[in-house]
């Protein structure tokens, strides 16, 4: 019922009739990219249709049409449910001949898709999900985890907060794979930096009222309340924390995963001062600005999140590898993706590690006060750049079976 599917033919289709029977190794003579994400729930703004737009931009910028490569983009709503996401993935691969699954926020869904894609030997370009297990215990030769992960978030925001004196923590954790991974990775960072975790409470995904959980966090006496959740859950928690005077009473909030869309939804008045870790912000340099303005024009004026940027860059890099191998076989292309260095306007130069982890700089931002913001979406001040080499979990610590110890 809810399988809302839009078929979007790229401009390449026009060429399909003239190009004839080239690329014998690309199945069906077309590369089909399925953008699978939340299109109707709490993560629909940070991923959703924007990710489809980003994928389409990647196909255009790659110049697929000029190169005689046919690319088709499909999209569907997984409703943040692993069973729904698995069904769509199977149908896409078995019936519709999809070669690549892109985006897939919501770690519980991403972990399920990860397994299916591996079994069927297709490719999985994850941008939206956070769980660092995707390149750890659950790593796969068919998966690239592009944009961020829970380890990188903990290492960015978690460390920064402990260093500025926030040494006792209480977690509000979304009760599913992502929240658990984020809490686990942040706890490790806090304890390593000499801090202490006093407790945590697990709330159901997509909770409207956080007051009860906030009160428990307040009672814990911890200096920092870590929000190990995302999207609408984070914005509701932050908004209600302000209402209950949590910050005035001396506790501080650490939003461990905060997207540009969340800050936009909260408004600067409420969000100001938040410290957050992202791998992309539209206002980093000329290239990101130029791309983001193009994106916003296609997306009803809304600026891109790092998830959108990750979909763009991962699809672009996939197409380069597919062109180089003249193939759309899962492991063949992903292996090639790891061989050739990455280079795109949004994340700059980087690489993909053996475990599937894409390596690039991460950034520690602080949300501006309302009077500092000069234009719409002018929300962040850059506080620190975390160099690529330090931004992600060292490969040998991930317990990925692909990596020979």
């Amino acid at each position, binding site marked *: 019922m809810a399988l809302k599917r839009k078929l979007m033919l790229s401009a390449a289709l026009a060429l399909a009739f003239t190009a004839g029977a080239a690329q014998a190794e690309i199945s069906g003579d077309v590369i089909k990219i399925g953008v699978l994400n939340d299109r109707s729930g709490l993560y629909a703004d940070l991923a959703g249709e924007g990710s489809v737009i980003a994928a389409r931009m990647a196909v255009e910028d790659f110049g697929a049409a000029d190169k005689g490569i046919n690319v088709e983009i499909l999209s569907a709503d997984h409703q943040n449910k692993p069973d729904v996401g698995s069904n769509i993935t199977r149908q896409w691969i078995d019936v519709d001949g999809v070669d690549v699954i892109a985006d897939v926020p919501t770690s519980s869904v991403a972990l399920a898709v990860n397994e299916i894609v591996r079994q069927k030997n297709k490719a999985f370009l994850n941008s939206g999900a956070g769980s660092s297990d995707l390149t750890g215990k659950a790593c796969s030769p068919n998966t690239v985890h592009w944009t961020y992960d829970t380890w990188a978030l903990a290492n960015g925001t978690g460390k920064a907060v402990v260093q500025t004196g926030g040494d006792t923590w209480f977690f509000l954790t979304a009760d599913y794979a992502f929240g658990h991974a984020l809490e686990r990775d942040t706890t490790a960072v806090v304890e390593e930096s000499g801090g202490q975790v006093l407790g945590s409470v697990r709330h159901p995904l997509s909770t409207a009222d956080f007051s009860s959980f906030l009160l*428990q966090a307040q009672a814990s006496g911890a200096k920092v309340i870590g929000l190990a959740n995302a999207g*609408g859950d984070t914005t509701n928690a932050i*908004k209600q924390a302000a209402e209950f005077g949590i910050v005035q009473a001396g506790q501080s909030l650490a939003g461990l995963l905060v997207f540009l869309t969340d800050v936009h939804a909260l408004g600067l008045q409420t969000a100001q001062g938040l410290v957050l870790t992202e791998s992309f912000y539209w206002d980093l340099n000329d290239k990101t600005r130029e791309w983001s303005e193009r994106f916003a024009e296609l997306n009803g004026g809304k600026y891109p999140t790092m998830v959108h940027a990750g979909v763009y860059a991962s699809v672009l890099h996939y197409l380069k590898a597919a062109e180089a191998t003249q193939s759309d076989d899962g492991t063949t292309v992903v292996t090639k993706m790891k061989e050739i260095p990455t280079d795109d306007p949004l994340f700059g130069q980087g690489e993909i590690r053996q475990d599937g982890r894409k390596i690039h700089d991460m950034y520690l931002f602080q949300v501006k006060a309302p009077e500092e913001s000069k234009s719409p979406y002018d929300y962040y001040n850059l506080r620190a750049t975390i160099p690529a080499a330090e931004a992600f979990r060292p490969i040998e610590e991930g317990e990925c079976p692909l990596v020979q110890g």
Partner: protein
Amino acid sequence: MFELLGIPPQALFGQIMLGLINGAFYAMLSLGLAVIFGLLNIINFAHGALYMVGAFTAWFLLQYLGIGYWGALLLAPILVGAFGVVIERTMLRHLYKLDHLYGLLLTFGLALVIQGLFQNKFGSSGQPYAIPSVLQGGQNLGFMFFPNYRAWVVVASLGMCLATWYVIERTKLGSYLRAATENPTLVQAFGINVPRMIMLTYGFGVGLAAFAGVLAAPIYQVSPLMGADLIIVVFAVVVIGGMGSILGSIITGFTLGIVEGLTKVFYPEASNIVIFVIMAIVLLLKPAGLFGRTA
């Protein structure tokens, strides 16, 4: 952590207060549903969507007309109520003679359409809406910090619930309404315009949802999904209270708010299913609901 004695009594008080606040929303929404079901026999699945429209109307009024919270509290229910009247006139009235299921399907479809339109326009993250300046801040009660705004929500909602109950159960107008649902032909024979009364009742029920929406706007994000998340719980509340029972829905609303609040302390993972567990138990033991009259 799950021991009752392990929780200090102060924390427990705090959680009961919070439960009361959430209960206020449940009560107000289930009251609207109960009024509509009791008098029109329509299971109004669009109630959550109309609650959301109420919150958005407050946001529109502020954004485009500069009308603040208090104005919105008055205007939004009237505007959304008028919208409800249009729905009743153009669509619902054709269904009164048919099975309940038709009304349910129509309103469910309406809810999806309204929600879809808003989501298409505004996305899912929602819009911020500030707490009115008079009600900012809060009181330190010793065992918890109690935001002024939430206190106001409880007061406003209790007042609205009691007033509604009084009008329907204790006034002449209410007696007409109740009589019209029992036997519309007879009431019409006494010279009372029954279709108009039914139309206004639906408008009023919808207005109640919008009123709750405006109250909710400063607490939650004003987002297209805010109603969808709530409506299922509210339906459970109505079922537990007894379909169509007005006092039942008020009392059940507040009680279940508290039960849910306590669940969040003792076993937070279950907090979004506890109401449905209770619903299942109540339906097994007392199929007409706690306050329902057996048909």
